[in-house]
């Protein structure tokens, strides 16, 4: 898979600290790339650099195989839709008038504006003043503005901010759909479960450093979930010399490999200890995330 975004040692330092520290991002084509990190970890700063809104202190950015420079920026931006930190918009104008501004700035066709508004389901509210829009409607207008140019790459910074669960689900479905059409979507969030079900690839940022980049499965590979053995007789198991923590449903063993699991199960069966169920605990991405950010990462 070819990469739409790559960065080489991307760094941005402010007066007293480094907000983004030597990032080597790789965003493959046609995926939803979840860009995760707690507040202040440097997500917005990184995205601004990708759009040429902020200059890197050092390091480079390559978009669609072309280096991002002040000269190439204007040309590259034609195919990049974006929304950073909060949706833009002119409150004294209607939603449609706001879209017309985008249309004239980018020389877009009427059909592109209509399609973008329909995609975010704002068509019915397009003649309302944006000042009177709800938070979610403003957010959707911001997405429509980013979508209007039919981008090959979408860079969205916390697009679900302030949305209710239904709104979040809607955006999620939309982004997955866009990715299936071949559009590369980079979406940031500080909430894992928001990104969890849509992102194909994850990049996790902590304190300006990239502490993980890869697929969801790869992320889980790095941390082994606990094993739970359901048995009515944990005492008998412990008597066999198995190191485990007794829990209500039986036993819990942490950090145990697949091979050791087979071995433990065999010994229990041979000793006649009744086993009702053996399973891995469903680890939430949140746990892995906390684990990662706490430990300082895997990279």
């Amino acid at each position, binding site marked *: 898979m070819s990469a739409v975004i790559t960065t080489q040692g991307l760094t941005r330092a402010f007066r007293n600290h480094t907000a983004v520290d030597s990032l080597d991002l790789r965003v493959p084509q046609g995926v939803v790339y979840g860009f995760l990190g707690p507040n202040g970890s440097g997500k917005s700063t990184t995205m601004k650099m990708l*759009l*040429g*809104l*902020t*200059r890197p202190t050092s390091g480079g950015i390559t978009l669609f195989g072309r280096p991002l420079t*002040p000269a190439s920026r*204007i*040309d590259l*931006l*034609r195919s*990049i839709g*974006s*929304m*950073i*930190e*909060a*949706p*833009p*918009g*002119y*409150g*004294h*104008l209607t939603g449609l*008038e706001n879209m*017309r*501004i*985008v*249309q*004239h*700035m*980018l020389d877009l066709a009427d059909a592109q504006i209509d399609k973008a508004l329909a995609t975010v389901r704002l068509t019915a509210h397009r003649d309302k003043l944006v000042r009177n829009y709800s938070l979610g409607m403003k957010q959707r207008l911001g997405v429509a*503005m980013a979508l209007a140019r039919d981008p090959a790459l979408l860079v969205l910074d916390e697009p679900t901010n302030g949305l209710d669960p239904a709104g979040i689900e809607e955006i999620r479905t939309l982004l997955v759909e866009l990715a299936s059409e071949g559009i590369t979507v980079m979406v940031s969030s500080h909430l894992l479960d928001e990104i969890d079900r849509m992102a194909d690839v994850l990049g996790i940022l902590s304190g300006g450093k990239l502490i993980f980049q890869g697929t969801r499965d790869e992320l889980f590979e790095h941390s082994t979930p606990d094993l739970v053995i359901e048995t009515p007789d944990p005492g008998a198991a412990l008597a066999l010399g198995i190191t485990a923590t007794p829990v209500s449903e039986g036993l819990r063993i942490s950090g145990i490999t697949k091979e050791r699991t087979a071995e433990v199960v065999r010994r229990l069966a041979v000793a006649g200890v009744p086993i009702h169920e053996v399973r891995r605990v469903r680890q939430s991405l949140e746990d892995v995330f906390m684990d990662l950010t706490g430990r300082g990462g895997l990279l």
Partner: protein
Amino acid sequence: MLRAELIKLRRSAIWPIALALPLLAVTTGTINYANNADMLAGGWAAFNSQVVMFYGLLFFSLGIGLLAATSWRAEHRGTNWNLLLTTSRRPVTLVLAKVAATAVSVAFMQAVLVVGTLVSGAFVLRLDGGVPWQLVLVGAISIVAALPLVVVQSLLSMLLKSFAAPVAVCLAGCVLGVASVTSVGLRPLSYVLPQAINTRALNLGSTALTGSGSLTPDDVLPILLTALGLAAACVALGVAAIRWVRLR
């Protein structure tokens, strides 16, 4: 790009400003003329001089400062700058579109002044003599003469988030402008200071300001050419400013 800027003028707060200032000038001019009708020589020229007096020295330039600040205020709200800077337009287009849109509102302001003066002269004061059509010409010339100030105030309002700061700078320029057109020592300044160029343009053919020049090519052309030259220089400055300040 200009069309995008024109859309932003809809329901904008610039219109009340562009309406109120010239109407204020016409009203005070009318009252002054009516109160001093016996002392003033009478007729359109005297009335127009009364209207243009404070308007030329203060209201017009201050109005431009306010119009520029108002049109940029919307851009400083929220993340609208991100939208402007990701449009794949060159910075020069951005500056020019904003300047052009502000110039449209300045032209509107001038139209209100000219129409207001004509209406008040003809129907309120019932002045004798033919309607002085050179008022229209002066109104048009002063729109071009205003371009340097439109550009300068646009730049200031673009660079400064504050609404009041650029207007204050504009006001300081007005004070300096008054000094430059009234004192002999500072006279050279009146040829390059945008506010003073406005004053001189509006007073072309007027009797209120000594040495204000007449409506002849000899007096008009230097003003127009300086205005265009200064405006172009300021646009170049603005482009450099966007590159270095906003995209740092």
